[in-house]
Structure formats: structure tokens, C-alpha cells
């Protein structure tokens, strides 16, 4: 191994170990975007204040996202000689209380704790590894997220970081490509194209200049896996891309990051600087003669740029329009018409470990045909939303009921949406399916890059389909007619259905239009745009029919099909609804039953929300029957 690297690594490990043996308590605060959104920074201020007040000595450290967003703000405390305890839903008040109880008086407060992380036992606090939320998870890409300081290259190196790169630099490029091929790694961007094949074709492509591009333009609404990797473990991505550069013979790489991810950009920039400083990136890496430079390119807000040829156009400074077929492969003529290797964030992030631990290590997880793990952003109407990593082939239902803890507020499960605007909705009867690229496509959805949104009985499937179509229509680049105008036609039909003006034959027309758009669009965006509509028609046709034939929205979502009214028997005349109504549609005297003026009512539902539970006087109706109160 390279001498300079050996001493860098030894130093990093020494510092890491020293910190583990620290004689003062360590406090880790999850402060990725999700942590900050729930107030992590206020919690840190409160911790600092409390420490100063009490004179307790402790080391505060910010870490990335461990994926349990439902429990944010997460604060972990490691007291010398004690296991790491993770505390959930911290606020400035509770964290102050906790510090006093645990650090001063040695009461670990099991009531505030989420779990013990790692080895050791604390009475009354379960171990995270035994908890339903974690038991079935297996962390490869997310292994460092929430454990290391993402802004410290030494933390990363202490976790075997850059070992893959050092090993790769001692191999021939073809050997590296062969390991990636043998690992059966499939691209994590959504389609699951074998990474080894792509790498091989790029290695073989003739050209004096080649490029590596990371597609970090995570645009699917309902997905944030790539953001978490960039924010929580940026060096894994950098190392993976550098290995790829060496393997295919590229000297320049681009990370195309979404405009909406400011923190990811900050973390990546810092990581690139650090890697250059340590000679793990830049000129003549570790004296190997191989040079590789990385540049961050910030997207400017166009979903279609997630499509590889559109992304390339965007880096070239053009409108991000996909290139029509027939076209050369990106691996042969991509950026500036040079051979270009383009992979997703997670695909690159797997690479360092695959090279370091070998292809067989990777194939030991997952299923035949789909090796390794899948990362999902589990969100929507689910109790434990967050970021999860599971072995390929896990049962879909297990993710929702065991890891996710079931549907929010114990409502009835209706569907799970995967694959974003290109995917579909799967009903309860499909929850026994194993999760992998091919099975989900067969069932009419797709894995996509990893968004998994749970829908319950209060979600209208027609509205969801309309939502996605509206999205793809707005994001269509507009160059081909089926995508630009076909989706508009479909959207207009759906708008009519949701407005209670649906006609017999609308469903058939939607299916026909959808199929033609899939057949005739030029890029993946158009070819997949009708999927949410087709899959909901396939599995939830009765809901479409209820809208069309009964003029009813069973989920009570479509405003034109519902009506709020107040039950005179139940109304006590407290006036809460009247005070909160934004359109002054509610009238009624003190202690007298109130009435809603249906002409003024905009169906915002605020009266329904504010009516105290003990009265429950506001009811929502649809169609001919009274629906749930």
C-alpha cells in the first residue's frame, strides 16, 4: 500500500479510537436537512447553553441522517464506559432536562430514549438492532450516514474509507471493470441497467478524453435517498467516482446536483477540497500517475435533466432536452461527444466497498438477478417515515408494516406508490411481492430511484394519478408531441373526472391515450408518464367509476364532489368553526347550531379540523350518501 496513505489512515484511525475512548461524554446531533427542519440547530444551541450553565464538559458533534426522520431531532449521547444511547424527538427543553438527568445524575431517561446503538445494554432501553424498524435493514450505502461527521475526511478514512481507491490504483482498469461486472451491480437510478456493462462499454470506447458523471439530480417527488448520501457520506460518492475514472480512463468528473439541495452542495464541496488536500483526488493521486478532477454542476430546476442525454445537454450549457433516437450511446458519445460514464449517486457509493471487499461479498446479499440492497425513502401515510436500506427481495409488506410500523393513525392501507412519476401504485394484494427491479415492473410499477409513498383510505387514487400527470406535463421538455400534448389530453380528462364531469368511456380513452404516449414518446419521461394513471386504473378502477357514475369521491378529497355540513343535533354553538372559517361561510349565534353557506364554502376543511372531538359536529358528504365523520 502507498506509504503516505498508510500514515494518513493510521492517523485517522488513531483519532477515531481516541474519540471512542474519550473521557468526556460525546453528544451527536443529526443535522442533515431533515434534522435542521425539525430544529436541530436550536437543540444544539440549547445543549451548548446547558453545558456552559452546568459546567459539564462534553464534545458536541454534528452527524448526517441516520434515516429515522420520524424521530427527529435525534440526539445521541455516549458517556465514557456506557453504550451509545439515541434520544428521539428532542426539543431545546427536553434536551436540557436530559443533559441534567443523564450527565449530572446518571439517569439515562429510558422514557426519552429511542434505542441503544451498537454494543452494550442499558436497562429499559432496547437495542436498535432488535427493533422492528431496524431488524430487517442491512446497511451498505447508508452505513456511515449518521455515524461519521460528513465534514471530516478522517472519520471516513477510519471506516475503511479510500481503501477501495488505493486497491483499485494497484489494479489494471479491466480488472476493476471485471469486479464490478462480477458483483452484478445494477444501476440505482431506476432502470437497473447492469453497471459492469456500462463501465465495460465506456472502457472500450475510443477517445483521448472521457468523462464520469454522477446523476445527483434527484427529481422524483417523494424521494430523498441521494440527498442523504451526499449530505451524510459525501466521500463515498467521491471515492466511487474516482475509481470509475481510473477504470474507464477519465480525468474529469461532474456531479450534477439538484438546485434544491444547498446543504449537499456545501458538503460535497468541502469533501472535494479535503480529498484534494490529502492527494486522494486531483493531480497524480497518491503518486500513481493517475489524475482526476471533480466539479460540481448545480442543476437549475428541470426534472427532465434526470434523463441522461438531457443532463449532458444541461452541463454543455444548453436547454436540457433529451436526444431523440437513434442516437449513439452516452458511453460512446456523451458529454462534448466524448465517451461518458453516467451513474446514479448510490451506484457510485456502492463501488468503494465492492472493490475493497470483493464481488462475492456484494453478491451474498439480495437475490439472483438483483444483488445488494435497495434504499428507499419511506414516506406518506406511514408511522415511521424515513430512509431505509433493505436487502433486495424483501417482501413489500414487511417494509410497510414492520419497518414502517404500519399506516399513520391506524387508518386502512390503500396503496403504495413507487417509482415516482414514472412508477405506479400497488394495492394491498401485491404486498407479498418481493422488492426488486423486475418484479415491480411486472406488477405495473417500478423500483425507480427509491421513493416509496404510502397511501391510505383518505387518499383519492384519481387525484394521485392527476397529481403525477400534472407534474410530468409541467416538466415535459416539449419537444415531442405525445409527451407535450398527449399528457395534456389525459390531464384534462382527469380534471373533468375529479370535477364530477366524467363521462362513460373516459377510462377507456385514458388507457388508449396512455398506451399511445408510451409507444411514441422519445424519452423515458414521456414513455413512463402514463404509468401512474394506467396502474391506478388497473387496480382501483372502482374509484374512477365512483367519480364518473356516482359523482362521488370515496376518499373525500376531490373538492367538487364533497360537501361539508354541520349536524344541528351535535353542534353546541361553540363558534370555533365560525371564527376559523376563512371565507365567513359559517353563521350561527352563541350556543346555537351553526350553518355552512354552501355558496361561500371553499371546502378547505378547516371547520372539520377545528371542531372539537367531543362534538364532532362537522361532517363531510360525497355522492348520495353521508361519508365518514
Amino acid at each position: 500500500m502507498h506509504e503516505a496513505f498508510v500514515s494518513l489512515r493510521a492517523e485517522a484511525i488513531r483519532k477515531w479510537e481516541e474519540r471512542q475512548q474519550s473521557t468526556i461524554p460525546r453528544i451527536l446531533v443529526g443535522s442533515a436537512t431533515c434534522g435542521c427542519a425539525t430544529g436541530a440547530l436550536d437543540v444544539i444551541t440549547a445543549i451548548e447553553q446547558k453545558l456552559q450553565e452546568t459546567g459539564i464538559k462534553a464534545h458536541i458533534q454534528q452527524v448526517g441522517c441516520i434515516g429515522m426522520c420520524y424521530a427527529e431531532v435525534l440526539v445521541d449521547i455516549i458517556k465514557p464506559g456506557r453504550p451509545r444511547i439515541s434520544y428521539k424527538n428532542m426539543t431545546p427543553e427536553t434536551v436540557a432536562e436530559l443533559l441534567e438527568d443523564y450527565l449530572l445524575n446518571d439517569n439515562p431517561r429510558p422514557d426519552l430514549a429511542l434505542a441503544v446503538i451498537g454494543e452494550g445494554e442499558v436497562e429499559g432501553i432496547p437495542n436498535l438492532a432488535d427493533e422492528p424498524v431496524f431488524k430487517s435493514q442491512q446497511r451498505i450505502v447508508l452505513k456511515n450516514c449518521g455515524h461519521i461527521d460528513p465534514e471530516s475526511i478522517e472519520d471516513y478514512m477510519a471506516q475503511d474509507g479510500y481503501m477501495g481507491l488505493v486497491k483499485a490504483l494497484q489494479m489494471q482498469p479491466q480488472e476493476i471493470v471485471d469486479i464490478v461486472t462480477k458483483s452484478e451491480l445494477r444501476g440505482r437510478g431506476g432502470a437497473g441497467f447492469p453497471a459492469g456493462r456500462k463501465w465495460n462499454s465506456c472502457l472500450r470506447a475510443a477517445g483521448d478524453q472521457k468523462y464520469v458523471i454522477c446523476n445527483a439530480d434527484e427529481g422524483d417527488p417523494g424521494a430523498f435517498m441521494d440527498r442523504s448520501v451526499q449530505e451524510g457520506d459525501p466521500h463515498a460518492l467521491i471515492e466511487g467516482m474516482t475509481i470509475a475514472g481510473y477504470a474507464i480512463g477519465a480525468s474529469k468528473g461532474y456531479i450534477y446536483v439538484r438546485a434544491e439541495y444547498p446543504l449537499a452542495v456545501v458538503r460535497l464541496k468541502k469533501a472535494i477540497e479535503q480529498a484534494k488536500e490529502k492527494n486522494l483526488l486531483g493531480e497524480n493521486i497518491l503518486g500513481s500517475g493517475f489524475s482526476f478532477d471533480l466539479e460540481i454542476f448545480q442543476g437549475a430546476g428541470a426534472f427532465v435533466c434526470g434523463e441522461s442525454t438531457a443532463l449532458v445537454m444541461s452541463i454543455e450549457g444548453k436547454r436540457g432536452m433529451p436526444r431523440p433516437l437513434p442516437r449513439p450511446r452516452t458511453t460512446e458519445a456523451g458529454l462534448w461527444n466524448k465517451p461518458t460514464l453516467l451513474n446514479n449517486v448510490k451506484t457510485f457509493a456502492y463501488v468503494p466497498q465492492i472493490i475493497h471487499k470483493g464481488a462475492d461479498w456484494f453478491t451474498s446479499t439480495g437475490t439472483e438477478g438483483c444483488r445488494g440492497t435497495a434504499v428507499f425513502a419511506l414516506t406518506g401515510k406511514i408511522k415511521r417515515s424515513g430512509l431505509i436500506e433493505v436487502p433486495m427481495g424483501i417482501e413489500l409488506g414487511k417494509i410497510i408494516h414492520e419497518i414502517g410500523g404500519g399506516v399513520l393513525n391506524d387508518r386502512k392501507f390503500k396503496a403504495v406508490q413507487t417509482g415516482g412519476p414514472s412508477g405506479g401504485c400497488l394495492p394491498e394484494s401485491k404486498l407479498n411481492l418481493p422488492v426488486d427491479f423486475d418484479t415491480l415492473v411486472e406488477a405495473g410499477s417500478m423500483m425507480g430511484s427509491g421513493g416509496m409513498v404510502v397511501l391510505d383510505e383518505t387518499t383519492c387514487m384519481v387525484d394521485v394519478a392527476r397529481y403525477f400527470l400534472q407534474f410530468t406535463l409541467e416538466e415535459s421538455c416539449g419537444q415531442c408531441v405525445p409527451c407535450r400534448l398527449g399528457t395534456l389530453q389525459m390531464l384534462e380528462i382527469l380534471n373533468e373526472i375529479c370535477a364530477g364531469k366524467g363521462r362513460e368511456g373516459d377510462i377507456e380513452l385514458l388507457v388508449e391515450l396512455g398506451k399511445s404516449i408510451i409507444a411514441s414518446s422519445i424519452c423515458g419521461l414521456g414513455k413512463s408518464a402514463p404509468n401512474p394513471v394506467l396502474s391506478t386504473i388497473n387496480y382501483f378502477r372502482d374509484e374512477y367509476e365512483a367519480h364518473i357514475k356516482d359523482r362521488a369521491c370515496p376518499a373525500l378529497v376531490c373538492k367538487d364532489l364533497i360537501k361539508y355540513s354541520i349536524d344541528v343535533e351535535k353542534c353546541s354553538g361553540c363558534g370555533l368553526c365560525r371564527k376559523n372559517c376563512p371565507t365567513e361561510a359559517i353563521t350561527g349565534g352563541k350556543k346555537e347550531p351553526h350553518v355552512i353557506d354552501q355558496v361561500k364554502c371553499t371546502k378547505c376543511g378547516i371547520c372539520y379540523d377545528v371542531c372539537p372531538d367531543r362534538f364532532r359536529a362537522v361532517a363531510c358528504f360525497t355522492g348520495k350518501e353521508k361519508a365518514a365523520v
Partner: protein
Amino acid sequence: MDERVKNILASFRGHRSEIIPILQAVQHEFGYLPEQEMKEIAKFLRVPESQVYGVATFYAQFYFTPRGKHEIKVCLGTACHVRGANKILDALERELGICCGETTSDALFSLEKVACVGSCALAPVVMIDDNVYGRLETKKVKEVLGKYA
């Protein structure tokens, strides 16, 4: 030429592939893309103005009219949509007295919707400048706006 544009352009080589980063830098400085500056960019890159506009109008990030001091982005991603993002948007519109896509008359706030800010687990989410507010409820909207008034 405005001193600010001069400084921005000086940090670029003048290659036409730099068009998006230049537009981003100018917008970051001015808050939007003023007409005069668009002309300067075209001149600097030696391309027709139409080409600069062609690129700028393709991407949702760029604006051609002045924005409010604080930019409010209501996330309408899938998770936010099913957890009531539209109600939050309605409440913001009512509270600010403007429609989505507009700027308040005191130029304090601009309101717009975005597809997803990637904080889905905290839905519904609103982003004000670079701050993300998660698990919002209609009744909390006023309080959040108060921090910026």
C-alpha cells in the same frame, strides 16, 4: 456595465458551456435576471441574446422580474401532496394576500410551489430562503411567517 456583473463575468472564461453557472451567479447577486445583465451575458459569451433567454427560460430556477426579500417555496412533492400541502399553500396565499407565483406589494415575500425539496419524511414542508420548515399545519403558518416580518 454594472460593477457587480463585471466582477461576476471576470471569474468565468467566456465559454458558452458556462451559461448556466453565469446565470446562477447573476441571479444570486441581483435576485433575478435583469434585462441589461442578460445582454451583457450574451455579449460576454459571444452568442445571440435569444440563446441566453432560450436557456434561462427552460429552467424553473430563473426569474425575470424582481423577487421578494424572502422566497417561500411550498413543497408539492408526493408525500407533501398526500399530507395536505395544498391546504398549506391556500393558507399562505390567504395570509400573504397573493397568489402562488406572485410577490407581496411590500416586496418582502415571493410565493411559489416546487416539486420536491427532499424532506418528504417531514411532510408537509415549506422552504423559506434556505430554511426548511417541516410537519407544518395551517395554524402554524402565521407563526412561521412572523419570523421574517
